[in-house]
């Protein structure tokens, strides 16, 4: 079922690229429409899975990725509609496509362990996923910032100069998405810790510590973004350096998502 949104995302990404290159307004509108349909189809898929198993499918890495992609698509659409700026789509869509292929190739909904029932766990995962989706958006915004920055610095005003919004707008968008993500991540992590206190009858929960790669990387992320938000402006790190931080932060998130989820075992293997 996951392949329907994937197919729409693939087509949308092609149209977004075409729009970016040719600056055809009609292409931009069709791209947005395709993405909206993709997100709707995705909503439907996730809704069906929820009905199927009786809970939001976030209990295993595969379904979590699908949910993450869905959230990212929605977050991007929200930014696009509120700013009327489509240039970012060409960078976001490939990410959606790449990540969405995982649930398509492994079409399983992980069984929910009895341990994971209850509102705290759902809240924890939803918040963290939402944070990661924001960070993904911030990463893309950061990359575009750097591309535009380099063109202006090099006095070679070409491709990106003609297509991207101003540095200041990108900087502000970056900051907003990071603030949102940081708040979600902070609350998400706190909820996770609280939940672990509740459920510490389980041996796996008892084994949870910073040494678990997933938890460790999440904390690293939190540190990186906290630095970006609070320390960087004070030491005069603005603009390009902040943009780089956003990009690096999300690379760490991605690391947490794919390799660690699938290939490393630890206490936090869900």
């Amino acid at each position, binding site marked *: 079922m996951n392949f329907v949104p994937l197919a729409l995302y693939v087509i949308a990404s092609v149209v977004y690229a075409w729009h970016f290159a040719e600056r055809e307004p009609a292409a931009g509108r069709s791209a947005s429409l395709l993405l909206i349909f993709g997100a709707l189809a995705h909503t439907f898929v996730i809704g069906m899975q929820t009905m199927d198993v009786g809970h939001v499918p976030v209990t295993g890495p595969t379904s979590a990725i699908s949910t993450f992609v869905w959230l990212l698509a929605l977050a991007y659409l929200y930014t696009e509609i509120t700013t009327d700026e489509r240039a970012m789509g060409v960078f976001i869509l490939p990410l959606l496509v790449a990540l969405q292929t995982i649930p398509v190739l492994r079409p399983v909904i992980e069984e929910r362990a009895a341990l994971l029932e209850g509102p705290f766990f759902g809240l924890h995962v939803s918040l963290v996923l939402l944070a990661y989706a924001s960070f993904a958006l911030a990463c893309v915004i950061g990359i575009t910032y750097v591309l535009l920055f380099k063109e202006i610095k090099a006095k070679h005003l070409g491709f990106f100069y003609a297509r991207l919004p101003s540095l*200041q707008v990108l900087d502000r968008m970056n900051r907003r998405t990071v603030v949102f993500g940081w708040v979600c991540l902070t609350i998400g992590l706190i909820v996770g810790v609280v939940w672990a206190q509740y459920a510490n009858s389980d041996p796996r929960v008892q084994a949870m510590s910073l040494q678990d790669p997933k938890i460790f990387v999440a904390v690293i992320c939190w540190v990186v973004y906290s630095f970006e938000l609070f320390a960087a402006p004070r030491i005069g790190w603005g*603009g390009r350096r902040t943009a780089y931080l956003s990009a690096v932060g999300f690379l760490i998130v991605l690391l947490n998502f794919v390799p660690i989820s699938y290939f490393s075992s630890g206490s936090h293997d869900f």
Partner: protein
Amino acid sequence: MHLLLVGLSHRTAPIELRERVDFQGRLEPALRALAARGSAVEAVVLSTCNRAELYAACNDVAAARADLAAFVGDFHGVDRAAVAPHVYDLQDLDAARHLFRVSAGLDSLVVGEPQILGQVKDAHRAATGEQTVGPLLNRLFHFSFFVGKRVRAETGLAAGAVSVGYAAVALARKIFGALKGRTVLVIGAGEMGKLTARHLKSQGVRHVTIVSRTLAHATRTAMAIGGASAVPWDELDSALGASDIVVTTTGATSPILTKARIEAVMHSRRNRPIFIIDIAVPRDVEPASGELEQVFLYNIDDLQATVRDNLARRASEVERAEAIVSEEVGKFGAWFKSRGVIPTVVALRQRFEAIRRSELERLDFKLGALPPEARARVDEITHLIVEKLLLTPTAQLKGLGDAETATAYSEALSRLFRLSDAADRDSAEAQPEIRAADPDGSTALANDPDASTSSGTPRATSSGERVERADPGEDRVQPFIRPKARPTGPGR
């Protein structure tokens, strides 16, 4: 009806003459004067710094051409003979193509400049206000707006700044977004600095500060700009710290702003981005300063290089823009040609309707005995027969592709059905009214054949008299008649 353009532009006339025949600000009187001359049925006056053009719809092209050319001189009190050699004229689709190219910015001095489309719209608006626009020019100008927008949206013809001032403003926008709320520091109180400051001020920057070695000069310049303040030379560093955009224009022989100095300032401003435009020669800013993070340094050569790039890029888009123009000329042409047969269609319908009515009247003594319902039925049936007979020829005529065939067909029909001159004239006069009711122009006649005869224009006297005589009879059958489909006699 023909489309005619008479005008002169930067391509044909020197600036001295263009200045003298400028219609800007006097469009309305010009349109009224033009209408009073009567050589054109419809008229629009388009006037910019680089062109003065009259667009007209007329019946007699040769006469209108001569009259419009004379009007350009007469209206401005310039000798006709002085204007004549610089005037060009274009007809029908060539005139349409010209207007489309103008709207697209293809005919401008600086290709793709943005103001022209607004000026074309102003011309159309003024003519609409003076009611000198009819269906033909209305259609033409709306087409041209569409072409202008399409070219701007689909090609890079209007992209990129093509003057140093705009290039600087465009760059500032790319760095800071909106310039509202930004502050500008101008170093040097010369003429260049003043011009740049004015330009930035007109783009909405919040505050301009002038700093000069002589405070009195700076104060004077600040006063001249208005809304600017002057700062003494030794406060330069703090002024740098407070500004987002810096313009340097001094005549100093060695750099005023060294890398070390800017670095110190950047530290104090916590690395907020700064855009330095060095338009002085020799340069006021040490080039290595551009290496500093968050310092965007452009000198006059850099700006000129971006302008050159933009011009080259625009030139490379001309072909695509021309293709769009050609495409739209084709679409307009299809409509334009199809309307060429409309007088014939109208005349044909009038002819048929006249025959039907005269026959009904001739048989009036036989039909008189019938009850009103039956009379109405007879009227309806005969009307439907005429409709059916005309349906195919009307569709065929309108489908004719090229003007020559259309003319041949029209002539043949005129001869075969003796579509009299009187009827032709009537239909020509009746046309604008039809169009006014139906902007598309092509459907009215097919769907509502009587629209042409009920358009308020008196028909030929002979048929008109007959219609008048038929009136009492019509009154009797009135309840069964679709009101819209019945011709109204001129006597009513």
